[in-house]
């Protein structure tokens, strides 16, 4: 309790308040720009924090982290240009809403869900971090492989309109996931002599291409030829979501926050799996699953509460075991050690005052970005009023600069341009892009963990049925595949 009081007094200083404000605002901007990831945002802050007192340093890193994840949702909704892979699922329903002039409702729901997910995850982190990190360790390569399959099941939901075309897109994504050095033998696969492809097809250029660049093309090309009907975005109103909508989405928000926190705590799972799985669960449990992907507020609620819950989740193994839950928290570990704080049990004993300062500041940062987001959304929704011929080139410029900034590689810019064209034509010919991206993200996770399991078990397939955890995930997979089939069969009767 003393530590909480010290933490509160740390946060009551002018310095702390200013750091929080700057961190939150900077994080939101980083999240909005395509190509600037949360990892990069936090990494760029590390040198600044060298000369700061440790509590301020952590407040800054924490605020940048949580608000950058939220920031991605705003552009995902308004422009269909998700800043990071965490907001892909948000764009699926957010953009259709924005193009009907309901952008502020979508942002409102995204903000509320992000706040909810972020807060729940920090509370769980404070309350049961040691217990959850123990469960997280029970996840081995076998469980990760099965979890990736569970994530891939999401594709079925996203393609329900046109299964054949969705399957083609998903297979293309899986094929793209094969490119790169084989991490078990070191042999290059389908790299065609380009060492730029040794680490695999870089994900962010593909994302920026498929979503942002193709969107820029859409906006530049006259409405009759493009996918967008230009006159559909004239009626922009400033409503926030209705209380009844919030009530309707509450269950999804709660469920997704738990999923997000838990998956966040698994090192090696990743933010997007949490968002995909939550989105799929929300759709599966919904009374109107056919609305998902066409502008369903509940889809936004699921995706956003999950991806923000991941922020608290990833800090669970980071703070309790010193094992970073993802790339951002790996940078966090560097930020902690530079101040002499070794991640692990010590953080909750010797450094408890500073650790609680971080945790409470995370809660405040969540509230801050929500307030700023709602206040700004009134003005931000107006970007949808900007004519496509102006907005398109602006998005294009941001996409090119952002892609180049990722690793200062011109190759990536060409890749983004190529995927921009691919995305544009996929959309015109009604091939969904989401399955491609989901397969591209989850395919490699499935591959390395499957092969790792096989290596550990000496090619004994029963290794996937050895633990209760594996069996539990398998039953979830079976359930989520069988349930829609059963429902369809019942309808026919």
């Amino acid at each position, binding site marked *: 309790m003393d530590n909480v009081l010290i933490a509160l007094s740390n946060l009551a200083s002018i310095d702390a308040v200013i750091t929080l404000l700057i961190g939150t605002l900077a994080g939101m901007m980083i999240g909005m720009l395509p190509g600037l990831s949360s990892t990069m945002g936090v990494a760029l802050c590390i*040198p600044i924090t060298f000369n700061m007192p440790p509590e301020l340093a952590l407040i800054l890193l924490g605020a940048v982290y949580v608000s950058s994840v939220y920031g991605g949702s705003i552009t995902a909704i308004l422009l269909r240009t998700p800043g990071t892979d965490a907001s892909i699922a948000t764009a699926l329903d957010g953009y259709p809403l924005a193009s009907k002039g309901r952008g502020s409702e979508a942002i409102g729901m995204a903000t509320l869900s992000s706040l909810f997910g972020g807060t729940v995850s920090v509370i769980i982190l404070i309350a049961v971090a040691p217990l959850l990190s123990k469960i997280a360790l029970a996840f081995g390569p076998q469980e990760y492989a099965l979890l990736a399959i569970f994530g891939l099941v999401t594709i079925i939901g996203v393609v329900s309109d046109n299964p054949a075309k969705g399957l083609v897109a998903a297979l293309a994504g899986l094929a793209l996931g094969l490119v790169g050095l084989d991490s078990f033998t070191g042999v290059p696969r389908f790299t065609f002599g380009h*060492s730029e492809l040794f680490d695999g097809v870089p994900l962010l250029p593909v994302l920026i291409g498929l979503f942002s660049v193709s969107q820029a093309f859409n906006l530049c090309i006259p409405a009759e030829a493009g996918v967008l009907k230009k006159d559909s975005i004239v009626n922009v109103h400033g409503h926030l979501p209705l209380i009844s909508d919030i009530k309707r989405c509450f269950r999804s928000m709660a469920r997704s926050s738990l999923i997000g926190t838990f998956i966040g705590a698994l090192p090696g799972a990743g933010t997007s799996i949490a968002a995909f799985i939550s989105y799929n669960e929300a759709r599966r449990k919904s009374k109107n699953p056919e609305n998902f992907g066409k502008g369903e507020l509940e889809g936004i609620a699921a995706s956003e509460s999950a991806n923000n819950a991941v922020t608290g989740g990833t800090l669970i193994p980071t703070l309790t075991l010193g094992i970073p839950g993802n790339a951002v928290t*790996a940078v966090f570990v560097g930020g902690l050690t530079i*101040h002499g704080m070794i991640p*692990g049990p010590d953080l909750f004993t010797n450094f408890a005052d500073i650790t609680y300062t971080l945790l409470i500041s995370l809660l405040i940062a969540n509230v801050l970005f929500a307030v700023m987001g709602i206040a700004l959304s009134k003005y931000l929704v107006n970007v949808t009023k900007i004519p496509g011929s102006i907005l398109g080139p602006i998005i294009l410029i941001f996409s090119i600069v952002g892609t180049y900034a990722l690793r200062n590689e011109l190759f990536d810019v060409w890749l983004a341009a190529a995927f921009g064209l691919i995305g544009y034509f996929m959309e015109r010919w009604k091939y969904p892009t989401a399955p491609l991206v989901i397969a591209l993200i989850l395919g490699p996770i499935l591959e*390395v963990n499957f092969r790792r399991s096989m290596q550990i078990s000496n090619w004994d397939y029963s290794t996937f049925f050895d633990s209760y955890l594996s069996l539990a995930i398998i039953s979830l997979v079976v359930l989520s595949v069988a349930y829609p089939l059963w429902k369809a069969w019942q309808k026919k009767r």
Partner: protein
Amino acid sequence: MFKKAFLSASAAILVGTLTAGSAMAADFPSKPIKMVVAFGAGGSTDTMARIFAKYAEKHLGERVIVVNKPGAGGELGWTFLANSKADGYTIGLINSPVVEVYPFTRAETVGYSMDDIRPLVNVVTDPGVLAVKADGPFQTLTDFIEFVQSHPNEVTVSHEGIGGDDHLAMMSFANKTNTEMNMVSFSSNAEATAALLGGHIDAFEGNMSEVSAQINSGTIKALAVWSPERLDAIADVPTGAEQNVDLIAAASRGLAVPAGVPDDVYQKLVDASEAVINDEEFKQELVKLNMPLNPIYGSEYVDFLQDSHDSLKAIWDVNPWVKD
């Protein structure tokens, strides 16, 4: 007439280049220096580069800008460095033993050769450790080796990628102890540490700085550190040599420039690096990050990399670790 003109012209060009050369060195650096990091922002190489850059600015009197050029396990960044203008305004981080093996392990595709790069100074050497779960069956390296010898190919040990320093260390370990292990590739030390603590693998081979926290908190037990002497950060952990396994393995991070950099500019950079390395505040920051300082300057660093190249090439020729 023509001949005379030609002679004076060539003399002028000669004088011009000479004075340009020395003028360049005299006022070097007169503009910001670019520091190329072949790995992503936030990794341990990047962290070291950013700290080094901060102190290098102090000693060089010019800005030092860190530019990340990650990809292909460092190859893209090193190719970029090798092809940069050799004027001293582009320097880069190189990681041994990776930088010296690509030219033969990726002979067909690699974009640089070690002749294109002139090593400047080694800064940090992060030794490998072999570690197990603290409450597991192994208490000493001898226990471990005996068990592996009687159970060939059963014991699983993690490493961070084929051909990386951890994988190479385990190959040498297997050679020296006459053992066969099941070496499992992990994408990051974090994932491998989690797998070790969760009991999914038997042993972990990785760099000291990335597990020193778990070693000191007692959740992980390090059986050996592959350095010539014990390390301050994990003083209780015996070296391999103390336990009759004569193995030295580490990841070293240093600086290099493109090969054609003029000697006087090169010397200035070596001197500036020495000033950074002897800076007490710089030393303090490295200690906090558990990055053991191991300065090797100029030609000695060139020899260090050459020796490492030769011994790894010898292993590769007998038993290449990348098989088609």
